């Protein structure tokens, strides 16, 4: 039985990769081939579908928009979460437990509940259809998550490090930037990874808060789905291109994933 243990993960990975393979397969076919012949691999390989995406601004601007707001969100979330997580891990203050719980409830709030009020709120602030609106809206679930993960990492750092630094005459900001941040660098990496992940995959809020100039790629794809005459090849190619950034990010943090899941208690 032990000898065939490798079979389980292997079968699971095959199950995971089959639909993705099928998407790649379709993205390399012409529409005519997709609809007429059923083949396990492209008969006449074509990159025309990708060319459509890279040359049509309506398509590639979606990727740029998504990237802009995801990066903004990661920066905002990590920057604001760092001091907050430090306070939660080091200090005891009035209402800290309740505050922490309240923050976490926002991670559990269904985006569907907030879609309409978000539209009205950001419209009234004049931020509708801007990248910063989506970045701020995604803070609703990413900021509590960041604080949660970072607090886990920070509590793993012994308090003596803080005390020694103060004795050595460091001021708090200098200690935080010069000593503390390098100590939790991997934690910041894991946090950024999760913020990237949840902001990149979210559709409902991003679609609600944008119309033209900040429209994310995911919203552009749903629009194409609902149109008549579906262009399956281009749709598949667009899908493949949305997987690539995620795959790259995982590759960079592969050594921290397991640790991040354990410590970060995500």
């Amino acid at each position: 039985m032990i000898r065939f243990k490798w079979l389980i993960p292997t079968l699971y990975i095959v199950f995971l990769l089959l639909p993705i393979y099928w998407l790649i397969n379709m993205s390399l076919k012409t529409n005519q081939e997709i609809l007429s012949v059923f083949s396990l691999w492209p008969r006449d390989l074509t990159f025309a579908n990708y060319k459509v995406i890279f040359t049509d601004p309506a398509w590639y601007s979606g990727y740029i928009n998504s990237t802009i707001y995801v990066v903004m969100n990661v920066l905002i979330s990590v920057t604001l979460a760092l001091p907050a997580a430090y306070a939660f891990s080091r200090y005891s203050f009035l209402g800290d437990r309740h505050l922490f719980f309240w923050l976490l409830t926002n991670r559990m709030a269904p985006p569907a509940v907030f879609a309409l009020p978000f539209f009205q709120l950001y419209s009234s602030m004049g931020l509708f259809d801007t990248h910063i609106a989506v970045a701020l809206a995604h803070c609703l679930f990413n900021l509590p998550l960041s604080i949660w993960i970072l607090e886990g990492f920070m509590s793993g750092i012994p308090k003596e490090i803080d005390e020694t630094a103060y004795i050595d005459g460091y001021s708090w900001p200098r200690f935080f930037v010069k000593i503390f941040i390098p100590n939790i660098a991997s934690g910041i990496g894991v946090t950024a990874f999760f913020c990237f992940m949840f902001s990149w995959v979210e559709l409902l809020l991003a679609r609600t808060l944008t119309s033209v100039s900040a429209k994310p790629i995911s919203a552009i794809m749903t629009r194409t789905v609902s149109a008549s005459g579906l262009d399956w090849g281009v749709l598949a190619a667009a899908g493949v291109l949305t997987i690539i950034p995620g795959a790259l990010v995982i590759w960079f943090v592969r050594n921290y994933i397991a640790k991040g899941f354990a410590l970060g208690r995500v």
Partner: protein
Amino acid sequence: MERQVNQKGWLMVLPAILVVALNAVIPLMTVVNYSVQDSFGNNQFFWAGMSWFVELLHSERFHAALGRQFIFSAIILLIEIPLGIIIALAMPRKGWGVPVCLVLMALPLLIPWNVVGTIWQIFGRMDIGLLGHTLASLGINYNYTQEPIAAWLTVIIMDVWHWTSLVVLLCYAGLSSIPDVYYQAARIDGASRWAIFRYIQLPKLKRVLLIAVLLRFMDSFMIYTEPFVVTGGGPGNSTTFLSIDLVKMAIGQFDLGPAAAMSLIYFLIILLLCWIFYTVMSLEDDEPQGGVL
């Protein structure tokens, strides 16, 4: 870890609180506001009191969506949690297999949710999809746009495909925190495979499993994008889960009052679960852990 009393902590938390409050408190108050009013358009609102809540709690449509939601979440948990544990137990512990497994398994988690929907929409189609075509050539009528059973199967397999990896990664992280000494001791005692799982691995997994169960429960309870892309809530209403129903009501029909009332009830259900989660976590946390939680 002993935490020192310092009210300055508030100042450090404040910027984060303000941003979250902007996103959480104002929209929540908007929802509360709508839930007790009626509108005939023209921005004229009338006090409606609790009538929307009463109506909703007696509405067949809401009961049906809530029932479907609970069945869906239950099925998801029953499949994903045991499957995740089995896969995590069978994963290699060291060597080149570890990063390969982790990266490939984490892949579905990083795919935008509507693309997950698109992938399965294509994969399940009888004319152009591998799964649909294979089943069709075996003589099975797998038309998920018309058959409720096929639609449910597609949505469930899609969710298993999408999220089991999260359970696997959590369990794997839990398993790799067990020191080798435990296994050596078990080998000396001649413990069976089952005994090792039951008395060494499962107790260590309890904590991460609790996180996994509750995260999967809550996220499957909020599921919107994937079934929306694949089935659009159909055929009929057979895959209309709570979020889909809510968005239909609020944005499709612009029934602000009932939609707001439904939002609040929906949010309260989740909040209640979240509170249970938090309490149980705090109680179960017998390992010494720093921090607030």
